[in-house]
């Protein structure tokens, strides 16, 4: 792993491009900005072409002999299959509105990270190889030939784009660099050039059902372990069901939440919410086969996205559920929202989702029949179905990171904010240019959340982190919440680097912190098993009270003895009456005196 320079060094970014024209600048693969090459064994599992051991750092990438032909044929095919691709190759006027909208350009200053130039890398090949003007006039018409160096340059920069679509928001023609990167990566994949961090998870997901390669029994035990944790914190043991036929709802969430902190706390949050709702009529199952909400296939090709996505509807059909509930995940929701029911026809057994608790019918999901858990929970809160104590999140001052995909691929802004405002007392949004549709990437989306490019990730994370720093300094924000599993993996190191003292959480971790389960023991810790900061104070008070009680008891004994003495002198009944009256006063006085003395 390349060493990352300290923040004060990293931030010295020069945005001035070099004097030489960009087509004349040879590609230089900088350490810390390219990912390790894909492994042959993973190629074989999923049938990717050209399995071989290789590294982008090598001189020879071991491409097949007719690599240019394969690439250009693939390009021609896609120019005919995607109106978006052809149009985006044709109509850019290079107005530059997108140039400084990219987090990687802001943080690296590399001019080829300006969205317009990233696209021009491929556009120049389009002009040079497919248009008459480009073929005849070459560079003068902005065209160039597909050389080995050009190919390497495409690889280098298409794996420095997180497909976040921020640039497309600002483009007057809606040119979407994500679309160009997606198709660019498809072309690279035709020659077997992908990165290990993507093909590994894809191969895992294909075989075991999830990116992390967690096998069914292990997945099962991990969730059981979470349930035991929950029991320790709340005294209640949830009992989730798995692969259960006939359940009403199938729940699918990214496997990252089952595997690594702080995502695990979000998974615990789901378990607690589902347990809470069970008594109210929730009939839900988890699946070990469809145990991945995320889809790294989407970072490989449309076809691979479809192959991995297949499990969602297939499992919903096999189990005979009525609808699917999806967990907090960014690109999962881009795929589910904009691709899933185009890839596949929804199975007949699925119906328009209806909340079994509130009866709300979700007409906005009537064809694709899947709900985002934040929609589901927001509806529960709106109907007053959740017993919440927001003060249990009082140790946090919370802000919210809009993940790129639900933001610009869905428009999912208010639901999570509505939840947050109901489960915590202090919520502060970041500045307007950095949230909602203008939100910034975590720096590690689209499969770029790997450690060997930590330099690039910290650079790309600068705009996001800087906005967090702003609310951290202004309002004391100490928790960055989000609804994306990749965020939960990438934001913690980014916070540690740019804004230490800010933690990262999912929304449903906070929901469960606030959620009062029936019959729970008094909560003294949050889901992270950290004692609430106010518990210590309360304990001190309790100790004092307990001390006072001990004293009381002792005093009572003394009084009782006195009563007995006096009882001997008078009749029993009379004595008892007067003794009780007499006893109360001195006992209290004695106790109070002693308590004051202790202080």
């Amino acid at each position: 792993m390349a060493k990352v320079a300290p923040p004060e060094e990293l931030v010295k970014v020069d945005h001035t491009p070099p004097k030489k024209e960009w087509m004349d600048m040879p590609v230089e693969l900088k350490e810390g900005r390219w990912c390790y090459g894909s492994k042959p064994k993973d190629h074989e599992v999923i049938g990717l072409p050209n399995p071989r051991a290789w590294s982008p750092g090598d001189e020879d990438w071991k491409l097949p002999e007719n690599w240019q032909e394969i690439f250009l044929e693939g390009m021609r095919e896609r120019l005919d299959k995607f109106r978006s691709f052809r149009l985006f190759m044709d109509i850019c006027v290079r107005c530059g509105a997108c140039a400084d909208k990219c987090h990687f350009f802001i943080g690296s200053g590399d001019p080829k990270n300006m969205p317009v130039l990233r696209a021009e890398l491929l556009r120049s090949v389009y002009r040079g190889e497919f248009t008459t003007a480009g073929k005849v006039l070459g560079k003068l018409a902005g065209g160039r030939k597909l050389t080995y160096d050009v190919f390497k340059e495409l690889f280098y920069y298409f794996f420095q784009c997180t497909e976040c679509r921020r640039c497309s928001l600002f483009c007057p023609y809606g040119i979407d660099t994500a679309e160009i990167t997606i198709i660019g990566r498809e072309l690279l994949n035709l020659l077997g050039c992908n990165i290990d961090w993507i093909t590994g998870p894809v191969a895992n997901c294909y075989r075991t059902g999830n990116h992390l390669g967690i096998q069914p029994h292990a997945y099962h035990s991990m969730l059981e372990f979470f349930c035991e944790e929950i029991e320790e914190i709340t005294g209640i043991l949830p009992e989730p069901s798995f692969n259960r036929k006939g359940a009403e709802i199938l729940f699918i969430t990214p496997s990252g939440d089952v595997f690594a902190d702080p995502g695990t706390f979000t998974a615990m949050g789901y378990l607690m919410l589902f347990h809470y709702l069970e008594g109210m009529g929730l009939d839900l199952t988890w699946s070990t086969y469809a145990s991945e909400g995320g889809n790294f296939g989407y970072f490989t090709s449309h076809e691979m996205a479809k192959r991995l996505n297949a499990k969602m509807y297939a499992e919903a059909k096999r189990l005979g559920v009525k609808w699917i509930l999806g967990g907090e995940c960014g690109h999962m929701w881009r795929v589910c929202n904009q691709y899933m029911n185009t890839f596949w026809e929804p199975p007949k057994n699925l119906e328009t989702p209806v909340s079994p608790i509130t009866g709300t019918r979700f007409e906005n999901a009537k064809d694709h029949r899947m709900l985002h858990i934040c929609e589901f929970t927001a509806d529960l809160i709106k109907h007053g179905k959740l017993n919440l104590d927001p003060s249990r999140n009082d140790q946090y001052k919370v802000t919210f990171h809009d993940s790129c995909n639900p933001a610009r691929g869905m428009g999912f802004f208010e639901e999570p904010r509505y939840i947050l405002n109901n489960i915590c007392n202090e919520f502060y949004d970041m500045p307007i240019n950095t949230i909602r549709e203008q939100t910034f990437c975590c720096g590690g989306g689209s499969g770029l959340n790997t450690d060997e490019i930590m330099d690039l990730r910290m650079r790309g994370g600068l705009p996001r982190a800087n906005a967090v720093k702003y609310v951290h300094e202004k309002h004391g924000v100490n928790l960055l919440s989000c609804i994306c599993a990749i965020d939960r993996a990438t934001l913690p190191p980014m916070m540690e680097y740019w804004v230490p003292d800010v933690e990262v959480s999912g929304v449903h971790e906070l929901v469960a912190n606030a959620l009062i389960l029936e019959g729970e023991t008094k909560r003294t810790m949050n889901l992270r098993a950290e004692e609430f900061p106010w518990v210590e104070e309360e304990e001190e008070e309790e100790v004092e009270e307990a001390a006072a009680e001990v004293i009381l008891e002792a005093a009572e004994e003394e009084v009782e003895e006195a009563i007995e003495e006096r009882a001997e002198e008078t009749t029993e009944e009379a004595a008892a009456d007067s003794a009780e009256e007499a006893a109360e006063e001195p006992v209290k006085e004695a106790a109070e005196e002693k308590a004051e003395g202790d202080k």
Partner: protein
Amino acid sequence: MGIWVSFFAVIALVVIPWVGAQGAGQYFFGIVIPYLAVLIFIIGFIYRVVQWAKLPVPFKIPTTGGQMKSFSWIKSNPIDNPSSTGGVIARMALEVFAFRSLFRNTRIELRDGPKVDYGSNKWLWVAALAFHYAFLVVFIRHFRLFLEPVPFFVGALESVDGFMEIGLPRLMISGVVLLLAALYLFLRRVSVPQLRYISLAADYFPLFLIIGLATSGILMRYFLRVDITSVKELVIGLVSFHPTIPKGIGVIFFIHLFLISVLIAYFPFSKLMHAGGVFFSPTRNMPNDNRARRHINPWNYPVKVHTYAEYEDDFREKMIEVGLPVEKE
């Protein structure tokens, strides 16, 4: 390099009719070239648009710029995140007539601290609007030359355009705005380092061409006066397919006519096609209603998947061990 090639190319395009539009040459520059240019424009434009229109749109991928339509108690943004055809039409109208996306433009500044600042940056939006609308007004004003009788709206537009009532003939603001906006767009391109870095000959060429066009038009109207009656005779001849070359039209007119001819002939093969292309952009012209209405991919094809049965075969024993239900014991 691109900038100089474009510059000298446009200079050449001025010199060619200057030298050539003499005597019989006027037939070539006054009749053949304009007809040819219009023919290339019409065929080229239709070809490009039909080519895009014929291409499939496999996925519904709008870029959502506001809250989606969900609960009745959550306010949605029906224009920046449309869920209906009406919303899409409104979004496209704002995009085409008001350059809505460009209006969002900001400029980042990285200060010490580090502190990333986002400044409002509307100059490109202002200049783009000024440029396009001025061009439109100038174009409509030219109807005076094409049509007899002159339609009423041309007169109305001219009285607005010339409201300042300066000079004789009256100064038309649109021509000046067009020239200044084009100059701004050019200066911006050469003075902002990143923009200069990404600019191609194809970006400078149309700008120089339009600057030349506007300049020749202004020269012709205010300084190197030509006989407007003869010009109208020529133009009416062209549009009524009875072309004629009246005597005594100054060469500046032929330069102007040649530049516009080159511009429209160049149009369909250049970035200027953004004018037609913007209507086809799938990130803008589609509603965000995927979950309610299924979008069909015309070339959707079956793919190899890993089925549950294969999965269970791999892990059956382990599943049974922890009590997970299986299909085959």
